[in-house]
């Protein structure tokens, strides 16, 4: 049984892993000391700024608010995210991409979603892939038959869909 690192008396039942840019720190404390520190085990909610404080040393409110550009959609500054641990809108992932991605990679060990995709996008994706496949096939056929005018037209259609 591990003993609480704070009071050195109670058994440590709360186990925290803190991931900072430099290291992975672990702390083992008892429920009572955890509660004193504002860490609630019941519904597993950490202090509001817990996550933000892991990204970088906590800036003062003024510093935080003034530093960096704001998201054009919701107006939040990166410093505000750091202080509160919560983003303001979905566009923040684009607006703060450079600063968020290293943090996301530390937490998840990845920066690319591989899971479920909304059905609407799945269908759009399928339609798009089918159309691309058809255009590529037609382009090849046109080139084979030396129908260059038709080939140029098909190439332009492919380009318009973002294909080289």
């Amino acid at each position: 049984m591990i003993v609480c690192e704070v009071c050195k008396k109670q058994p440590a039942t709360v186990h925290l892993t803190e991931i900072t840019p430099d290291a992975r720190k672990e702390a083992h404390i008892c429920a009572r000391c955890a509660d004193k520190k504002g860490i609630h085990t019941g519904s597993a909610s950490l202090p509001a700024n817990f996550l933000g404080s892991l990204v970088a040393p906590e800036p003062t409110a003024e510093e935080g608010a003034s530093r960096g550009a704001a998201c054009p959609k919701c107006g939040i500054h990166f410093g505000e995210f750091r202080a509160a641990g919560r983003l303001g809108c979905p566009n923040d992932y684009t607006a703060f991409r450079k600063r968020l991605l290293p943090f996301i990679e530390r937490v998840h060990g990845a920066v690319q979603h591989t899971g479920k995709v909304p059905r609407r996008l799945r269908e759009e994706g399928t339609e798009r892939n089918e159309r691309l496949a058809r255009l590529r096939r037609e382009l090849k056929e046109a080139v084979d038959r030396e129908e260059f005018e038709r080939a140029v037209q098909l190439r332009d259609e492919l380009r318009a869909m973002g294909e080289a």
Partner: protein
Amino acid sequence: MAIGRFAGTAGEWLRGAGPEADIVISTRIRLARNVDGFPFQTRANPEQRRELADLLQGALKEVLTKERPLYVDVEKALDLDRQFLVERHLISRDLAGGEGPRGVVVTPPEDVSVMINEEDHVRLQVLHTGYQVRDTWKRADALDDALQERLPPAFSSRLGYLTACPTNVGTGLRVSVMVHLPALVITKHIEKVFYAMSKINLAVRGLYGEGTQAASDFFQISNQVTLGKTEEEILKTLESVLPEVVRYEREARQSLQRDNPSRLEDRVWRAYGVLAHARTITSEEALEKLSALRLGVNLGLVGGVDIQAVNELFILTQPAHLQKLRKDELEPAARDVARAEYLRERLKGKTK
């Protein structure tokens, strides 16, 4: 208030009937989603939050038509009712203690609860009894699809489902299995479980408790990573270790029965004695004794008490539930008396 009809019963997930139910209490799947075109909670103004609550409530009522769901407006609910919902695992402490328009859609068997305007616009939860990772996921996935058809989610092909906190981004999926591991706690092998879990990025949290109370013999095992793995991979990570945890606990139970049977029986029967006869009991002590009784019932050391009743008592003896049952606000000391009375009613003279 409509939720009053829940008092005196507990959700289906406490039936104690699912696979491995002697050790695995429940399986929970949670999906975090946000509605496209709206800011997250921190930046949503009261009008936007009201609009979200209305849109989501309407959409969810359609999605869950057959289940005849109940909507609880948490903003307008009494403190006692909020606490009541927290104790039943239907809403989080954060939703209970939050502010502004917010609520929860609950199906009567309490297997589905969808929090609206918590940290994310939608926190969809499916809760099943026992160890049922696949069925629980299928249900959550289907409900998620149906909801997305009505209200498209904030999604990016790179980062998946976009959430207010980047720790949930990607699948937005949290799979949690609640386990009862008294023998591993008694034999002091529980730390090994914690260690093994942390190795594969699973979190183990103590469960239950009021305020500063020490953790109990109940633990919640859940995934940490939500991005870069498919839902299937996340489910498989949990499935790769859960049978081991169950086996480990079973072995610990067997060794307790083999090595010192009278000491184990004494522990169980003393617990029953206190529960069936005490005149005042704190929630901490009730929790500890109920855990020992639960172990005794599952090992066949105590007959006549059914496991569902014991499971339910964990919930029904919590403060808001006691006050609902007694239809009165009670101070802590009075609650301890009411708790002892209630436990006596439910347990005295029941054993064989």
